[in-house]
């Protein structure tokens, strides 16, 4: 991931009203935000959640007090995802998509090591996690954030991050079942 120094330069420019600088930040982080949103709220709502995340980030860019811009951005994204999930709970008849696993037909080259069956099993298992645990796994194990950054993104303390991650991993092992050991690990 890009150094936060680069982000800080761009965030300073964006805070001064430079839309081009903010759009550079968008281009840098939109893949991460989009994939987190996609696995949190599903394929159909991922675009909306991502776009709302960047709208909200731009509106509140002046409140950014420094630090990891990615963590701050993912906090906005997680809030957007939680909002959408809550709305979906209030309107349970509104089903955006089925529970089919999300299989990327064109994965990024550096992440094409897993076969399609393994990816489908993992995506299906992740989708069955509770939202808090799912977000924790996505941020730390999938996106590679460290614990502190994940705690910032989830607005919880470090102990909560550890406990959620532990429970999420244990739950994933249960969901994957005995076939888990036969899966290829790349």
């Amino acid at each position, binding site marked *: 991931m890009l150094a936060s120094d680069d982000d800080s330069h761009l965030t300073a420019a964006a805070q001064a009203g430079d*839309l081009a600088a*903010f*759009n550079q930040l*968008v*281009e840098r982080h*939109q*893949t*991460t*935000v*989009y*994939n987190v949103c*996609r696995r949190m709220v599903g394929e159909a709502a991922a*675009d*909306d959640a*991502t*776009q*709302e995340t*960047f*709208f*909200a980030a*731009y*509106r*509140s860019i002046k409140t950014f007090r420094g630090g990891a811009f990615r963590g701050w951005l993912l906090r906005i994204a997680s809030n957007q995802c939680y909002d959408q999930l809550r709305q979906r709970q209030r309107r349970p008849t509104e089903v955006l998509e089925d529970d089919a696993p*999300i299989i*990327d037909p*064109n*994965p*990024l080259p550096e*992440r*094409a*090591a*897993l076969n399609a069956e*393994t*990816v489908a099993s*993992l*995506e299906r298992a992740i989708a069955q996690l509770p939202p808090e645990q799912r977000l924790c*796994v996505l941020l*730390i*194990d*999938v996106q*590679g954030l460290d*614990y502190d950054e994940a705690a910032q993104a989830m607005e919880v303390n470090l102990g909560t991050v*550890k406990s959620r991650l532990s429970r999420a*991993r244990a739950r*994933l*092992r249960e969901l*994957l079942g005995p076939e*888990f*050991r036969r*899966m*290829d*690990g*790349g």
Partner: protein
Amino acid sequence: MDGHTSLPEQRTVEAHLGECDACRAELADLRNLKRMLAQLPQRQPSRSFALGPRSMRPVALSGTFGGVLRAVTSVAASLAVVAVGLSLVLQGLPRQSVSIAAPSTAAASATAPLPRAALAPGNPAASAAATGAAASPFAAAIPASSLAPARGAAKPAVAANPAGNAPTTGAASSPFAAASPASSLAPAPAAPTPAAAAAAARPAAQAPALAGVPASSASPPAGGAPAITLAKPAAASAPSAPRSANNGPGAATPPEAPSSHRAAQPRPAAGSVPVSAASASSTVQPTAPPPPINVPRLAGELLLLLAALGLTAYSIRWWRPSARKS
């Protein structure tokens, strides 16, 4: 596994793993799981989420304060709409018409309970007998004494009940029809119409009600200016006798009619009033002044309604997400 244990803890864990095969297998599973999760494919977004110039415009408030403000604004706007609507309905705005009565007439009859007196109907025959003239349908019999004594004490006058288009049975169900007795158009004296004679011959159940206008309700005749007025609604269930008694001394109360006839007093409709007063003189039938429409108040309420609607629309916009990027 993630390197978040202290050195003593790590040594303890390693010592246990050297003795426990189950924990060693579980650690291997977790590491394998973590490695696979890290290799999950990342999908490229199908489009760029860079913001366009439209994003620079002011947008909705966000956060807790924004949510509270949106909720309060929406509730206030809805209450304002309901309040204005109720105000308009309770005023009975659609049931009122514009009074074009001469000021002198309105002033003279300000205290005269003409509408109530006009509620005292008579059947057609009785009305015709009282007036001595064949009145048009819905005509109200006005005894001679009901008019200005100076000019026509002995002259019968027929006050046209102009709006009585509704038949008796239909009007009985409408409290407004029963309560609005006199939308009197009293232009220049006119001869009785043939229709009036025909109406007089109708059965009571079908003919519109005829109302006798007592003397006290007839204010001094105004100078011949036509007056189209709507009377203030009155309770339909109240008997007509007390109303006639309220007309003051000297009031000529027409023959009492059944209450169904009172209720049959049709709702006024100024545009359909064809009748004339049968007074021999050229005086204008005086009418009770209708409650004047407060034009500034009405305009203010309409403005308030528009403002409330605008506020509602704006709050609805607040509830919706902002515009997509251009």
